[in-house]
């Protein structure tokens, strides 16, 4: 017994020593980060996405490093929600990545808190070109005179539908169709098809309601960061969807909640759904049903209210290397080879150089064709206020509670206004 205990002790001591040594190595081996002795600059680039995007980005980063041998780019990535938790934590510690993927929707949220680098100075210094962007994207990152981000890819809202189901119901989807047409179509599809609902209940999608409001000369957010609609407006919108949901034409709340993480349309529950056009790629992988993109219904037969929203690259206000960050963003947005590699992974490339470099195939070609078809209708996007993401989440959640039968319409509308107004700080 005693002997055994001794060997255990010796082994334990050896192991402990090894660990301590390893810890020391780790601590000294990978400290610091930027700027080492040989004049090389290291910048940190973070983005959200999964491994498919990682493979592409890795290639483009290597390309950049070849062109700029004095700059080393360290990348790290995580899933969307995790990305923002991590970003917020790091930024709170003053340690945000030098350059990172951002969304148009967050420019104000983080710009207001002085976390984003104003790239205008770098553009003026010639480190970043602002030329050659597609229509509607030239000034996309310009917020109150500051350039807080540069778009890498853009997309727009679309009407997704199952062409077979629509054909079977004898409905054609045409440009200039109206909301009445849309709801009538959903009803017909529901009647002609025993399994599919006519449409997903998208009353809770902020971006869709924004289009509807624009068709009526309003918008979800006003220029002075308030809600751009009244309680009556919202009651009318939600109420209209609810009446069709209650008639059994739209996917019931319980079913769409159960189908997650799939969307109702890719779970083969419904024959149509509204979302961003680039989701077609995802849906095509999730369902065997062929889906098409169609025009957004209108109010007056003409205006859809659509605009391009974009995925952006932003710099951190606290970066030590603004010049290198600008060079990196410049390369990632303009280099044709990067465009060819990335394809539509982050939306349709923002610059014409990258747009022309990639020849879309299959599902991508469908998206390209759709974007071409709506190009004439695109309007300028209005910046989202800080707190817009909180309002968006509340919009989604509170209507869902109505759809699940947990909340009455009046109570829900009141609750949304109170939550959204407090999030927008009004």
């Amino acid at each position: 017994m005693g002997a055994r205990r001794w060997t255990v002790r010796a082994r334990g001591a050896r192991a402990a020593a090894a660990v301590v040594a390893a810890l020391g190595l780790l601590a000294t081996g990978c400290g610091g980060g930027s700027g080492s002795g040989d004049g090389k600059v290291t910048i940190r680039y973070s983005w959200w996405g999964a491994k498919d995007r990682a493979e592409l980005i890795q290639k483009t980063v290597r390309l950049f490093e070849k062109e700029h041998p004095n700059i080393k780019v360290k990348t790290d990535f995580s899933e969307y929600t995790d990305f923002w938790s991590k970003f917020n934590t790091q930024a709170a510690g003053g340690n945000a990545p030098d350059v990172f993927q951002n969304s148009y929707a967050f420019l104000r949220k983080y710009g207001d808190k002085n976390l984003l680098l104003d790239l205008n100075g770098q553009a003026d210094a010639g480190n970043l070109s602002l030329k050659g962007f597609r229509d509607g994207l030239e000034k996309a990152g310009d917020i109150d005179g500051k350039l807080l981000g540069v778009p890498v890819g853009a997309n727009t809202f679309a009407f997704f539908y199952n062409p077979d189901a629509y054909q079977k119901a004898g409905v054609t989807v045409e440009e200039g169709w109206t909301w009445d047409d849309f709801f009538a179509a959903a009803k017909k599809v529901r009647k002609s098809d025993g399994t599919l609902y006519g449409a997903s209940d998208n009353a809770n999608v902020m971006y869709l309601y924004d289009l509807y409001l624009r068709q009526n000369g309003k918008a979800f957010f006003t220029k002075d960061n308030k809600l751009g609609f009244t309680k009556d407006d919202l009651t009318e919108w939600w109420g209209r969807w609810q009446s069709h949901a209650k008639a059994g034409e739209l996917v019931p709340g319980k079913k769409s909640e159960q189908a997650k993480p799939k969307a109702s349309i890719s779970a083969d529950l419904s024959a149509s759904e509204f979302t961003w056009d680039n989701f077609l790629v995802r849906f095509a992988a999730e369902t065997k049903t062929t889906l098409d993109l169609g025009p957004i219904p209108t109010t007056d037969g003409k205006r859809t209210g659509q605009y391009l929203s974009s995925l952006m690259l932003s710099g951190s206000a606290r970066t030590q290397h603004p010049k290198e960050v600008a060079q990196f963003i410049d390369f990632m947005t303009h280099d044709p080879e990067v465009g060819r590699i990335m394809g539509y992974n982050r939306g349709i490339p923002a610059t014409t150089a990258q747009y022309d470099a990639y020849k879309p195939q299959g599902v991508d070609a469908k998206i390209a064709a759709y974007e071409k078809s709506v190009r004439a209708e695109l309007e300028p996007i209005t910046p989202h206020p800080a707190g817009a993401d909180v309002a968006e989440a509340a919009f989604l959640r509170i209507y869902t509670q109505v759809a699940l039968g947990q909340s009455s319409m009046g109570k829900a509308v009141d609750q949304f206004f109170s939550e959204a107004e407090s999030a927008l700080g009004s």
Partner: protein
Amino acid sequence: MSAASLTVGRRRVRSVIWHVGALAVLAVILYPVVWVIGGSFKPGDQIVGSLQLLPTDPITDNYRRLSDGIADVPISTFFTNSLVLAAGSVIGVLFSCSLAAYAFARIRFAGRDALFTLMISTLLLPFQVLIIPQYILFQKLDLINTYVPLLLGKYLAADAFFVFLMVQFMRGLPRELDEAARLDGCGHLRIYWNVVLPLCRPALITSAIFTFIWSWNDFIGPLLYLNEPDKYTVSLGLKLFIDQDSVADYGGMVAMSLVALLPVLLFFLAFQRYLVEGAATSGLKG
């Protein structure tokens, strides 16, 4: 004679009943695990919401794809990283928590009760609000993107769960042993090492197993502190298959989660025997 064989027979019947019963319970409990195994052989679009336990046409693509790695990092790197962290954590917890537990359970010193209460109270605060202050602390120490933030707490007995577990266990040990050792002229260090630790083996093994598993599955820590895919752990790697912008690779994810299960399963298998035998065989005579 016949009575004896009767009891042997009865015992055998009982044993069969026991095994049948236990296996039946297991069948229910392991159903989700079998589902995962089945899922790992299904194509990616037939996994979410699937009503089928097993694939109709099993494929091995999901496993084969794992060998491609993620973002130029081979899957084995994630496993190595996780193993280093888990092993480092186990050693740290065993060492630091048992020292603290010995003090709380075996030494009467001024301020003990207050410190014990303090230790218990550290269990009560949800980790979410400690994230930011701790992050800033490690950043000030220039330790971001190292494993130190993930390990340091383990070496400083920051996990009150294990201290408390060991305290509870040490309290169950006979005090006479200490007394005897003390009469032989042993100090606390010798008593701790030669008397208490060997008798606490079940608690130590339990702590080792839990630490290994929890470190293996920890996600938030590695997410916040590690900034290079080379340093990512398995738990981080598991979340790189899905993103709202991407075509989710559920097949790959499910396959990898099974592979990720193997090391912890092996660790458990290897150590579970000491869990329970420890108390009996390490004995009091030794």
